[in-house]
């Protein structure tokens, strides 16, 4: 069904269509509409789910873990401070191998208080063991939730679907809301090998000495590795059933591109427009959108970027004392390639500073006219 919905409602409908069974969530701007719609859907009986109105995000994730550990499908959503407050339990959920799916709205951290978009909140969770999908349209938000359950439940790891505050969360646009029956075919009910079941009692997460802890960690890494293929495969399957395909990355006008602009989320969306314009001017430029940041698609990047002339990565985040996270990790991926293009690193749009086509064209100009990166990091649009 074609509907005009906001990004937040795309999350809610994604959860509904995935038949999430337990929702434990706490309100925060700009996520509140997710929670509000879900509590209405639950109250009206439009969704067969328990909504736990927890007293904090920490408990939201903890309750999600409890529910998931019993074999129920758990969903939550948060943003910024709320995500940060979950940090400890995010590690827990991944370590416990629970296939929870969560929506996160990218919002800048305080202080100072800001409610606008920036990726620092989710980037700071890159080491938690969660998979991360950065969506760049409301349609992708909805579809990614459904796909995420499919992937998460196969590899027993939790997944975060991420969208920009306001720029997606509060933007209304046309979204095709698929039929429940087809989603049911795509996404079978959850089955878990090990779960909290009195008939088959296990203790989960007991003290593990140095003799086996390392092997358990290795298995998480293996599962992440496995996820790469799974995301591509389930994305293809999704296309067959719903007509839309999602993979680890999105390529746009990349065939003969010499200069590649890499970004994510809505900056990558706007880049389409910029690339079109630049192409019209005869520039050989292409867009590579990193959709999945965890697991990081190193292999794909190496393949796609092989032989390009120059690459620029535009980060809407900053790891203070270093640089943007997509920039760092892209370089790391290509490092041991015998011959690789230089990669320029740009920071843009922190704290909701608008990233306009003009800003992006400025970036392209710098890359085009600079032989080799002259700075470790370019801050675009900062008032000095």
């Amino acid at each position, binding site marked *: 069904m074609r509907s005009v919905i906001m990004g937040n409602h795309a999350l809610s409908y994604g959860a509904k269509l995935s038949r999430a069974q337990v929702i*434990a969530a706490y309100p925060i701007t700009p996520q509140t509409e997710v929670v509000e719609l879900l509590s209405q859907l639950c109250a009206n009986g439009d969704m067969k789910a328990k909504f736990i109105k927890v007293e904090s995000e920490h408990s939201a994730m*903890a309750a999600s*873990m*409890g529910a998931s550990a019993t074999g129920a499908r758990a969903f939550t959503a948060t943003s910024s401070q709320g995500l940060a407050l979950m940090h400890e339990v995010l590690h827990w959920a991944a370590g416990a191998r629970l296939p929870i799916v969560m929506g996160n709205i990218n919002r800048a951290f305080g202080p100072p208080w800001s409610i606008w978009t920036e990726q620092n909140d989710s980037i700071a969770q890159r080491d938690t063991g969660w998979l991360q999908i950065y969506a760049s349209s409301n349609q992708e938000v909805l579809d990614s939730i459904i796909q995420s359950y499919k992937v998460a439940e196969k590899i027993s790891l939790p997944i975060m679907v991420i969208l920009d505050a306001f720029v997606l969360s509060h933007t209304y646009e046309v979204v095709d809301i698929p039929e429940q029956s087809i989603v049911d075919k795509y996404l079978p009910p959850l089955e878990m090998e090990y779960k909290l079941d*009195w008939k088959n009692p296990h203790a989960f997460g*007991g003290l593990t000495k140095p003799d086996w802890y390392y092997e358990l960690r290795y298995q998480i890494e293996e599962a992440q590795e496995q996820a790469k293929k799974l995301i591509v495969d389930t994305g293809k399957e999704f296309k067959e059933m719903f007509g839309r395909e999602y993979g680890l990355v999105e390529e746009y006008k990349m065939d003969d591109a010499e200069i590649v602009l890499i970004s994510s989320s809505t900056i990558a969306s706007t880049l389409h427009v910029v690339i079109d314009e630049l192409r019209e001017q005869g520039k050989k430029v292409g867009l590579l959108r990193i959709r999945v940041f965890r697991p990081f698609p190193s292999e794909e990047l190496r393949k796609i970027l092989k032989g390009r002339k120059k690459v620029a990565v535009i980060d809407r985040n900053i790891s203070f004392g270093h640089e943007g996270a997509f920039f760092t990790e892209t370089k790391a991926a290509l490092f041991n390639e015998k011959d690789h293009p230089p990669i320029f690193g740009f920071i843009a749009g922190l704290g909701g500073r608008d990233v306009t086509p003009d800003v992006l064209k400025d970036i392209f100009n710098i890359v085009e006219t600079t032989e080799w990166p002259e700075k470790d990091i370019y801050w675009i649009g900062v008032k000095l």
Partner: protein
Amino acid sequence: MKLSIPEREIMSPGHLACQGCGAALAMRYVLKSLGKRVIYSVPACCWSVIDGPFPYSSIGVPLFHTAFETAAAVASGIKAGLEIQNDEETRVVAWAGDGGTFDIGLQALSGAAERNDDFIYVCYDNEAYMNTGIQRSSATPWGAWTTTTPVKHFKKERKKNIVEILAAHRIPYIATASIAYPEDLIKKVEKIKTIKGTKFLHIISPCPPGWKSPPELSVKLAKLAVQSKIFPIFEIENGIKYKINIHVKKPVSVKEYLKPQGRFKHLTDQDIEHIQQDADAYYEWLLKQEELSNE
């Protein structure tokens, strides 16, 4: 031959509690009553260790080890997960120490209590952070030594009254219990099994290393705590109806309770008098509440 408590043992020996651990006894009793159709949420506490290292367990029922602050929230999640899968029968227990209950886990507990989520919260209270080596918690009583309340500056704050805090939440059932009175304890768990909503059980559980007491005295101390009115045994229904279950007719002095415990050995007679008065006053207050409940 009749035993005064159920014979069945759900918990197995081989666990990692210290010699004479009150917390181990508390678990043993609660499980005897609850049986096997139960799921535990256990935050960081001695029990995270007692149960045993991967891949072993001693508790005999499903157990989710969880982060220190989360016992109650995880229990809420487990209950919701079971219910939505149409299992209304399996009981859920959040099992936490005093630190995980009075301090870092209080908020999650309060949240669950306000929602009146349907599970049993058991706090085994050894009156300090024992798993990390005896640091002050807000359940540590006035006067006690811990490694963070050194003798020169022993704890100067009153033990936080968790039971009154929960009574303010008006949950359906709250009770205190002592490992020295397993029959009373088990009777309460039996009652809890019939009540829907959030139930809270507060068990005083002596800890030999933490109390600096000989391991063989754990049960004795748990009895003296009751008989000296330091730890009265009572229950509260719906946050307002009080009932004292073990009326202390001939109280022993608090001194008798404090003396075998190294953690109190620095106290002066005056200090002990202070403790005595506080215990007496609280007991009086409880009697009044009981009276009020019967009006």
